[in-house]
């Protein structure tokens, strides 16, 4: 009974998409951390991708709505900081969806970066590695703006974090 409720709550929460990148669910992103059934109701834990991510408020609201639609109540959405989110948590399915949407997924491992070294992004449209960074800070805090020198298209890259 508890397991069934937990699964129903998880499935409902897992369907919530990122308001900035609507092809990704919060499950793909690794933002959905845990769903627990407690005597006081269902607790959903989410974690921000960036500390100041303005989407967190909307995501918390969407999770509450999704669980209400699934008939799960009462619900408490808790934002947790530990452990800190990293782009390594982005699922393979999430990476493929990002590429299909025209956003280059974050490169490699979220290890320490050299001060000026930038690994060139791979163009999500033509897969060329001949690309140039246009702006370190793109349309949202989690993306930078690039241009492909092969197909000439500009594109966003999800920053390594």
């Amino acid at each position, binding site marked *: 009974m508890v397991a069934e409720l937990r699964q129903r709550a998880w499935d409902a929460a897992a369907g919530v998409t990122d308001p900035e990148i609507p092809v990704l669910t919060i499950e793909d992103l690794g933002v959905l951390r845990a769903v627990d059934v407690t005597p006081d109701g269902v607790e959903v834990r989410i974690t921000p991708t960036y*500390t100041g991510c303005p989407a967190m408020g909307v995501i918390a609201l969407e999770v509450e709505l999704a669980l209400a639609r699934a008939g799960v109540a009462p619900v408490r959405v808790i934002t947790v*900081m530990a452990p800190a989110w*990293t782009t390594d948590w982005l699922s393979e399915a999430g990476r493929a969806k990002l590429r299909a949407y025209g956003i280059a997924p974050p490169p490699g491992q979220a290890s320490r970066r050299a*001060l*000026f070294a930038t690994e060139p992004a791979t163009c999500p449209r033509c897969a060329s590695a001949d690309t140039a960074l246009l702006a*370190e*800070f*793109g349309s*949202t805090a989690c993306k930078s703006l690039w241009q492909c020198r092969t197909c000439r298209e500009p594109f966003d890259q999800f920053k390594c*974090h």
Partner: protein
Amino acid sequence: MSDRFSAMLLRRADDALVLGHRLSEWTGHAPSLEEELALANLALDLIGQARALYTLAAGRGTGEDEDALAYLRGDREYTNLLLLELPNGDFAVTIARLFLYAAFIDPFWRGLSASRDPDLAAIAAKAEKESAYHLRHSAEWLIRLGDGTDESHRRAQAALDRLWPYTGEMFEPEDEVLVAADICPEPAGLREAWNRTVDSVLAEATLARPAEGWMQSGGRAGRHTEHLGHMLAVMQSVARGFPAAKW
């Protein structure tokens, strides 16, 4: 211990909020669209860090929430670095300030990510990745300005000379009890790393490191420049004018 802990959190949160607010003042005035977005994103990172630290402090003893801590304390209760409250000045001053601070705070967050306090360590681990971008962005701009035209070089050097007396405050001792308990690193231990970063970037930027001299102090004790009060008056006006307003 909890008073000491929350006082330390407030110092770091006030730093992030004050610099974040200063950077947000560029919105609508930046020299290019890309830089407009960059400065707004940097501000967003810093304000996010401040919110996380205020919320942690509120949960550990200050008894107030993040909004009360940000909007209902006066300038004498703020304990941020003087460096961060100075007006933005021209773009060179804004970039030089961001660089001098980022070169310090990036290794500081790295040290703090090994804190014995797991909540603080998690905030620091995330903030460190953000400050690494801030450091890179500001260093690239400082090199571009210093090694650019005569005018940009002159302004970048003037900015460094003006800000230099405010850099000593970053290395003032943290609470010895917290340092001894491995809850936070000792800022003085980061001076060498800071010197290396600053010297290598200034060399590439063809800028001269200002001579060491008198260092300003007082922010950590709530003694501020005249500028903080003016900044807070703007920042806090809505919250104070409409108490308990919801939006």
